[in-house]
Each structure stands twice: as structure tokens, then as C-alpha cells.
């Protein structure tokens, strides 16, 4: 059969449709970041942590705008004030000296004195922070009296506290205490003295609740009220309010926590950003150049890793020194960057080495892509997930380091508050005023916890290989 005998006509050919989908995507295409965000949204712990981090950022940035209290201002009338409601003071007359109460000494023998207890110990007038005025009945045979003051109940151990007065005149049966009175409960104890000055017999105790009072002139000097003339005797005025209490110098805790957050979070966010950037540049250079340069660069990184981190943080901190009036944040940043970059560098180098061998890089090169394009378009976006996870985990580590250094007195210089230095100061008054330690400690812990959980969530969402691992 010859070909000439058979003729093809147009009817023999049917044009195939130029666009016929053999495969279709039934769902909308989801990019890597959209997918990561979706996974993160499903992770309840990570999402809560994200909200906590946002709340902390607001606390630091917007907090001082709403709560305009100077963190360095010392309110010496409210030192180590526990958190609570605003304190009030009653306006009274200015202080008038008190003559005291005199009584005729009652004679007695050594035996009766040895068995005696001062009777009738009482407050002469309501106790205030201006003065506590006490009186008692003369003890037969006493040649004087000794008074003690305590902030605890002397019972059952007979712990009467600190001696506040030594009365040598047996006729004087009163005492006025004006020493450093706070609006608190005091226990005053009185002993009778024998002729040798020793305490004789038992003591009597009176419990006193001192109320805070202030004279109009004083209140004006302290800035609590505008003008002395505006208030009348007996008026209650509200003192500067410290919702979370004050520290051992009477500085407002809430305001200090806000400014301290500024230091802790600033270092916690900026230092990881800096050393991650250094690590990316160093690691991608090593991975890309390869060969002997890579060997040399990575060997150096190994040495830096071997340096004991905290010891060298301290060493660098003193090497850079802190000038007068400086906060010491900058030297800490530099020291952190100098010591912490190798971990990221190693990670990025590993990633670069791995991605370099991927098929899409070869394809891109085949299409004529230049090195810069490869790095910017393929390498960095593909390592971004891992880098972001490192960054998130670096934040709590750095916050820990800052707190640790400030705690041992090697961190931020004193007038600048930081959570670490606040904890250090709080430690000294831990037994009597635990709130000064507990508040900064809670803030550090919650921040670190939030960043750790967020890091876990991000790792699960971004890093395919690490998914599902703890």
C-alpha cells in the first residue's frame, strides 16, 4: 500500500485542546509561612505564649505612659510597702512636746520587787506615727524602768524586742516613743529596775496599733497635698499609691518592673538578633567558600564554644568597664555577641552545606542564577525557619544570663532597674518583705516560660524534621 493512495484530509485530525488540565489542585496553594502560621494557631500553648509576649511588650512600651511614676523616685515614708490598697494619713496638729506623767515612788522591799509586774500599762492617747505615749502605775520599790519595743508578740518566748528607753527616775511612769514609727502594730514591754539597774520581776506588755498621721505643713512639704490651707484637721489624705508596693528604698515596684522589663527585654531581643546575624554571615561564608577556609573558620568557632560562657561574660563585662552614669547595657550586648555567635554559625553552615546539594539549587544554577541570587532567593529563605527557632530559644537564654549577671552584681549598674538586680535587692529583705523578690522573679519566670513555649511551637510549626520531637 502506497502512501500516495491514502490521503489525509482535515477531518482525520482532531485538534487537541491546547490547555487541558491533567492535574488540578483541589485546595488553594498554601505557602510555607501560611502553613507554619496555621500550625502555630492550632498549638494552644504556643498561642497563649504569643499573647503573653505581646502583653509583656505592651507592659514595657505602653506601661510607663499610663503609669507615670519615676522608677528612681524614693518615697521614704512608704519603704518596703507590701502591695495593697492606697495608704491614707490623717491630718493632725503639728507635734507638741509632752511633759510626761510623774508619780510619787512607792516604797517596797527587794522581795516584792522581784515578784512584781508593772500594772496598768496603757496608752495615754491614741497611738500615731507622730508619737506613742505610754504610762503605767508605779511599781513598789522600783528605782527605774526599762522599755522594749517589738514588731512581734513577745509571747511565748519572752522576746521583748529592742530596748527603747532606760528610765532612771523612779517617779517617772510614762514614756513617749517617737523613734521611726510606722503605721504598724507594736508590742511595748515594761520592766521595773532594781537599785543595781537589773530588771526585776516580770514584764507587762501592751499592744499598740499606730495610725499614720501627718501635719498639714508636713504633707505640703512632702507634696502629698497642694496647699496646707486646703485641708482641715481630721481629714484623710491619700498617699502616693504603689499598687505593687515599694522596694527597700521606697521606689515604686510597678514602675521599676516596667523599666526593668525594658532592660531585660531589650537585651533579650537585641542580643539574639545581633549574634544571629553575625552567625548567619559567618556560617554562610564558611559553608559557601568551603575547603580550608571553612575548616579554619569552624575550628575558631569551636574554640569560642569551648570558652566557659558565664566566666567570660563576667570577664568581658569588666574588661569593657562601666563609666560613671552608664547603665552597662552596651558592654553586656557586646560580650553576648562575642560569645554566643558560634552556635548559629554552626547551624547555618550545616544548613548551607545541605541546601547547596539540593536539586532546586542545581536547577537554578542551570538557569543561570548568580551566587548572590542563590543566597538571597534560596539559601536564606530556606534556613529562615531554623534561624527563627534558634532566635526564639536564644531570647530566654539571654534573659537568664542578664538576670544571672545582674543578680551577682555583674550586670546592669545600680540606678537602672533590671529584673535580675531587683531580685538581688529583694533577696536581702526576703524574710520580712517577700514581695520585693517575688514580683521580679515571677516576671522573669513568666517571660522565659512564654518564650520557651513559643519556641517549642515555632519549632513544631517551622522545622519539618524536628516535628513531634520534644
Amino acid at each position: 500500500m502506497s502512501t500516495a493512495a491514502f490521503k489525509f484530509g482535515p477531518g482525520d485530525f482532531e485538534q487537541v485542546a491546547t490547555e487541558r488540565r491533567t492535574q488540578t489542585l483541589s485546595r488553594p496553594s498554601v505557602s510555607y509561612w501560611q502553613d507554619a502560621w496555621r500550625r502555630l494557631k492550632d498549638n494552644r500553648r504556643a498561642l497563649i505564649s504569643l499573647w503573653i509576649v505581646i502583653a509583656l511588650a505592651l507592659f514595657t512600651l505602653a506601661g510607663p505612659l499610663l503609669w507615670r511614676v519615676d522608677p528612681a523616685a524614693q518615697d521614704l515614708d512608704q519603704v518596703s510597702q507590701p502591695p495593697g490598697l492606697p495608704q491614707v494619713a490623717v491630718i493632725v496638729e503639728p507635734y507638741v512636746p509632752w511633759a510626761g506623767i510623774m508619780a510619787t515612788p512607792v516604797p517596797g522591799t527587794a522581795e516584792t520587787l522581784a515578784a512584781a509586774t508593772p500594772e496598768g500599762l496603757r496608752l495615754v492617747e491614741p497611738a500615731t506615727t507622730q508619737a506613742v505615749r505610754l504610762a503605767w502605775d508605779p511599781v513598789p520599790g522600783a528605782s527605774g524602768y526599762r522599755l522594749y519595743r517589738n514588731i512581734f508578740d513577745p509571747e511565748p518566748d519572752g522576746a521583748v524586742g529592742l530596748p527603747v528607753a532606760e528610765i532612771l527616775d523612779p517617779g517617772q511612769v510614762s514614756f513617749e516613743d517617737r523613734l521611726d514609727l510606722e503605721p504598724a502594730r507594736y508590742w511595748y514591754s515594761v520592766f521595773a529596775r532594781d537599785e543595781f539597774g537589773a530588771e526585776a520581776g516580770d514584764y507587762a506588755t501592751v499592744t499598740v496599733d499606730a495610725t499614720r498621721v501627718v501635719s498639714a505643713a508636713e504633707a505640703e512639704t512632702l507634696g502629698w497635698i497642694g496647699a496646707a490651707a486646703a485641708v482641715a484637721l481630721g481629714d484623710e489624705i491619700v498617699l502616693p499609691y504603689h499598687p505593687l508596693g515599694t522596694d527597700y528604698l521606697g521606689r515604686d515596684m510597678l514602675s521599676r518592673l516596667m523599666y526593668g522589663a525594658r532592660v531585660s527585654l531589650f537585651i533579650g531581643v537585641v542580643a539574639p538578633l545581633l549574634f544571629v546575624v553575625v552567625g548567619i554571615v559567618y556560617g554562610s561564608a564558611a559553608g559557601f567558600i568551603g575547603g580550608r577556609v571553612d575548616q579554619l573558620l569552624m575550628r575558631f568557632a569551636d574554640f569560642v564554644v569551648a570558652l566557659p560562657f558565664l566566666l567570660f561574660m563576667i570577664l568581658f563585662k569588666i574588661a569593657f568597664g562601666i563609666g560613671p552614669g552608664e547603665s552597662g547595657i552596651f558592654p553586656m550586648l557586646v560580650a553576648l555577641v562575642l560569645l554566643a555567635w558560634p552556635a548559629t554559625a554552626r547551624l547555618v553552615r550545616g544548613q548551607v552545606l545541605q541546601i547547596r546539594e539540593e536539586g532546586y539549587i542545581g536547577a537554578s544554577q542551570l538557569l543561570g542564577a548568580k551566587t548572590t541570587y542563590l543566597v538571597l532567593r534560596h539559601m536564606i529563605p530556606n534556613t529562615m525557619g531554623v534561624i527563627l527557632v534558634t532566635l526564639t530559644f536564644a531570647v530566654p537564654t539571654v534573659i537568664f544570663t542578664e538576670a544571672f549577671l545582674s543578680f551577682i552584681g555583674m550586670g546592669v549598674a545600680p540606678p537602672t532597674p533590671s529584673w535580675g538586680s531587683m531580685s538581688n535587692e529583694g533577696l536581702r529583705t526576703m524574710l520580712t518583705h517577700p514581695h520585693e523578690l517575688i514580683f521580679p522573679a515571677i516576671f522573669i519566670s513568666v517571660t522565659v516560660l512564654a518564650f520557651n513555649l513559643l519556641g517549642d511551637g515555632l519549632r513544631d510549626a517551622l522545622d519539618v524534621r524536628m516535628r513531634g520531637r520534644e
Partner: protein
Amino acid sequence: MFRYTVKRLIQGVITVWFIATATFIAMHSVPGDPLSGERLANEEIRANLEARYGLDRPLFEQYLIYMGNMARGDFGISFTQQNRRVNDIIREHFPVSATLGILAVVFAALGGILWGALTALFRNRLPDIVIMFLVILGISVPSFVVAALSQLGLTSLNALLGVSILPVAGWGTLLHMVVPSMVLGLGTMAFLTRLMRSSMLEIVNADFVRTARSKGLPPTRIFLKHQLRNAILPVITVLGPAIAAITTGGFVVELVFAIPGLGRYFVQAVQQLDYTVIMGTTVFYGAFLVFMVILVDLVYGLIDPRVRLE
């Protein structure tokens, strides 16, 4: 194995040299020096002291002398306590830190392995959830807070019971060591628990475990011989860095519990700019840590025959 050991040791020595050099450079760039104190107004005294410590020589010569002395194991004389040698200070205070550190590591390792194994066995059930919550807490609360709060708690407990069950601070008897070493080991224990959990989870249903089960081995034997032994390996790898973390973390615990260890001494020396003590303790700590990591790696090779040390 022998070649590997020698190679690691040489690397270790170079690392220690690097640490010593970095310390030297850092210390000599500190503004001010320990001799510019208030009582040394006399120029002659100052010159004599500088000569004694070799501070009058060129920096490079100082460096050579310093490295030479260090190679012979001599760290020099303290600046602030001029009758004490740094070697004596280390010899006196390091055993205290080491005891505390060893106890903490033992506590952390045993606790971490135990809790980690438990959480893996009870995966997603109540013990797992409770322990993992505590672990996250242990990782997130700084050691100084734990130290301070445990001290506070202990004080209240002693006061409540009327007798002192455990001393609140100080050093000396075994009882003094209990709370500080637990506080020191807590963070590492939390970290090891997480690690142990994930490594155990990979092994809980491994083929050899299933085989052992189908052979009819008793569960305790499977747990101890097959699961625990295999799951423990990653924990041993990180023990080197964990020891490092615990040793340096000891500063705070020593500070809070008033323990006369080397860490507290180091912090003091830093505050007084005591050059020789700072350099001596840093190099000593650095060398200790470097060789600890090497030791752990070598031990790892012995324990796990699958690991080829090259």
C-alpha cells in the same frame, strides 16, 4: 581508640591555651588595675609592687612569663591577699565546689533518667502531664529564684516544726549539702528529663523491645535491660556540657547559701579586680570543663560499642 584519645587531648590542650590567652587579653584591657588603690599613694611602693607582679615589663613579655608559669601549674600570688597563692586558694575552695557539683550532677542525672523514663512509659497520661509541667517550670525559673525560695521555704518549715531539720545556709556536714545540690541540679534535671523522655519514646516500641516482649521476658527486665540501657545513651552525651553548666551555675547557689566554694571566691575576686585570682580560676575552670567534656566523650565510646571513635 588510642589515636582518638591522643588527638582529643591535644585539641584540649590547644583549647586551654586559647582560653588562657583570651583571659590574659581580657584582663589586661580592664580599665584601672588592682594596684591603683587608695592606700598606694607612694610612687616607690607602687613601683616595687609592679616589679613584684611583673607589671612593669612589656605586655608580650608578661604574656610569655604568664604562659610559662601556667604551663608549670603556677598561677601566682593574689593581689588583694598578698600572702596567699592562687594555687592555695583553688586547692582550698575547689573541693567544696566540686563536692557540690558532683552531688548536683548525680541528683540531676538520676532524677532526669527516672522522671524521663516514667513520663515516656505513661505518655499523655497524668504522671506525664504533671512531670512535664514541672519540667517546663524547672527550665523557666532561674536558679537564684529557686535558691532563694527554697531557703525561704526551709526557714518557714524549720520555724513551723520548731526544730531545724535541714540547715538553711553554710557548709560542713552532709545535711548542709542536701538543699543546695538539689537546687543546683534542678535546671539540669529538667533538661535531662526532656531529653530522656524523647529518647525513651523512640525506644518504647522499637523492634528489639517487641521481640523481647514476644519472647515472654518479664516487663521489669525489658525496662531495665532493653529500654533504659538504650535510652540512656543520649543523656550521657550531654552530661559533659551539663557538668559545665552546673559548675558555673554554682556561683549563685554558693552566694545564696553562703557556701565557701570557688565560685563565690571568683565573684569576689572579680569585684576586687584581683587579676591573678581571676585569671587563675578562669583558666582552671576552663581546663576542668574542657577535659570533663573529653572524658565524657571517651566514656561514651566505652559504653556504647556502636559508636566508633575516630
